[in-house]
């Protein structure tokens, strides 16, 4: 090979690669709108993006897995946590996590209420971008292992379960089916609740639930309508604010941070199964 041939090789390969790259870039522009639901980029979302930039969030967190690795990925956070929870969290993270326990804490950012709601709108837009189903399995903020079937987002790609828990069939015991619902509802109960004693995550641990429920409904001050343990569990699922577990990290202004939509997203049968399962947690 001569010097000249080497030069031609360098120039030609660069030009060809650059040309292909530019063509694909043009084609990507054709598709950005649809893939990112660009029509949903409201002024609120745009302001939320500015808040994200202004407070330098990306130098601790990741979004689409890009950023810093000091704090959890937030791509799908609005699929795991409701607006009420996120609002309260952003007002004061130290009410939710303890620096001594996790050795890390998010400093309070002094966001205005409007900045908070814009930010949540932005994060919600992010969570709906079609990003090839990433993450392949949900990235949790706290808590122990969750089964693969837990599918938090709406993407088809991520909906393929790897199947490492026992599959259930219609003939199985309702309690087994309930456990399956517990893990696969959207958002999954496991995103916020543990069944280990003492492991309070975004929601309180469900270990010892039955004993606790008995005490709650027996108490004078209980505002709900449940007559028995099953009733209390059902009420907690379909009307989370009927009784509020004490603690700033669980509720604010009389509203529980637990998602309010299970009454609609789960069938009557699924709720029965869930209650049957949870009633085993003595």
């Amino acid at each position: 090979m001569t010097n000249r041939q080497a030069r031609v090789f360098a120039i030609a390969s660069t030009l060809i690669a650059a040309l292909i790259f530019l063509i694909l870039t043009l084609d990507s522009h054709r598709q950005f709108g649809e893939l990112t639901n660009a029509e949903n980029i409201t002024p609120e979302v745009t302001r939320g993006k500015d808040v994200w930039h202004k407070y330098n969030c990306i130098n601790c967190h990741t979004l689409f897995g890009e950023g810093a690795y000091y704090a959890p990925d937030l791509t799908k956070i609005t699929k795991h946590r409701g607006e009420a929870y996120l609002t309260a969290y952003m007002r004061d993270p130290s009410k939710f996590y303890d620096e001594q326990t996790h050795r890390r804490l998010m400093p309070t950012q002094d966001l205005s209420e409007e900045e908070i709601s814009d930010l949540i709108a932005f994060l919600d837009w992010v969570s709906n971008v079609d990003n090839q189903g990433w993450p392949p399995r949900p990235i949790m903020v706290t808590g122990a292992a969750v089964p693969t079937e837990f599918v938090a987002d709406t993407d088809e790609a991520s909906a393929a379960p790897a199947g490492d828990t026992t599959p259930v069939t219609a003939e199985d015991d309702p309690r087994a089916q309930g456990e399956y619902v517990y893990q696969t509802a959207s958002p999954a109960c496991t995103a916020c609740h543990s069944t280990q004693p003492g492991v309070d995550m975004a929601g309180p641990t469900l270990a010892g639930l039955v004993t606790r429920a008995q005490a709650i409904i027996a108490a004078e001050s209980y505002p709900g309508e449940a007559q028995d343990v099953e009733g209390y569990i059902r009420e907690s699922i379909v009307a989370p604010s009927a009784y509020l577990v004490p603690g700033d990290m669980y509720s604010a202004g009389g509203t529980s941070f637990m998602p309010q939509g299970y009454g609609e997203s789960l069938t009557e049968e699924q709720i029965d199964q869930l209650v049957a399962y949870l009633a085993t947690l003595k």
Partner: protein
Amino acid sequence: MRYKSQSVAYWYFAVAMVLFGLQLVFGLLSATKYLGPDPLLYILPFDVTKVIHTNLLIVWVLTGFMGATYWMIPDESRTELHSVKLAYLQLILWTLMGVSAIIGYLFRYGTGNKLLEQPLPHKIVIVICMLIFLYNIGMTIKKSGRFTTTEGVLLIGLVSSAVLFFPALLYYENYTVSIFYRWWTIHLWVEGVWMMIMGAFLAYLLIRLSGADREVMEKWLYVIVGLVFIAGILGTAHHYYWVGVPQYWLPIGGLFSALEPAALAGMAIYAYSAMRRSGLAHPNSLALHWTVGSAVFALFGAGLLGLAHTFPAVNKWTHGTLITAMHGHAAFYGAYAMIILAMITYTLPKMTYGRSEKGSSLGYWAFWLQISGMFGMTLSFATAGLGQVYLERIMGMGYLDAQLKIQVHFLMLIATGALFALGVALFIYDFFRHRPRFEADDEPVEDAPVKTRDS
């Protein structure tokens, strides 16, 4: 030093050294925050130390590139620089830009866009500095009429770096589109045009240090550049996984970025065989250590560790974890920090009084401490990252809980980081302990006579 104006390089290198030192202070500070709890939570939180750490890196590496270019161009074109005044003006402007950006970050004054955090006024100053720089270099070459291939590759690398900064100046409404173009700057810099810059410095150093034949070296330089761009341009797609762009970028990213290590392997073979074939013609064997070390460490950090997570099927699990930090540190250090340290080590005996060409034992300590420290840091990030991927991404353990389980690797990171910092401290001390010297002397031309296109 054959040309008096080459001494501007000294001041560029001096600024680079100070910023390099500062970079490590903020790096070590960030590392201790991984261990936590953080007593500085409300004074100097992680996001601030991290943004300063990465920005200092970019600024000092670019300062080093500029200094090394101001040294190399007169040598290659055999003439004084077009304007020493402009070169100093540029350095002052550049340093002010860098320092004020860092101070701004302390108060969260920045764009909050990863690696491109410089506020718009600073970005504009960056562009002005680049223009002054390119003008000065261009005029020098034009006046001399002597234009070597090595210089040509360097110059195109520098011009393209400036051009690729352009997308970073624009505003994007859509976050995904802003990610798309952010990588035009970042990826096409580090895996494209900066590789040309590195390749040119490598060729320059090898021709002088090993006495290798210029004709042969420049031919292979072309081949390396060709390999860089065949793979590197379409390889940008490895940053387009999972960010909301069309699906076809996945196979393209996997295929082309997997070819990227070829260019890096090419550079390592290039350096090694130049050294083997021609022996050590030059007394400055410490500079040769840095030169060959850079090519080899880049092959390890960028080539091998980049390849390790560049396929979509792997990246799906490792994306956004400490595995990325593992690769980022080793790659940047090997390819860009080390090549600048090589240029500094080569030029310093010519620019200071009383320094031996062969290098001091302090210089060797600095080399080996840095190499082993960085290798240890890479391993710490790798073990932490593997733990994280397994516990958090595969087992589904919560992020915060998984981080608690990998604390021991953060301890290792701090220990090896301290070792590395010691090596850097020695290098900086060695840099400043000899007085600079600004006279030209008629030392022999160190490269063999050449046939250039226009001479």
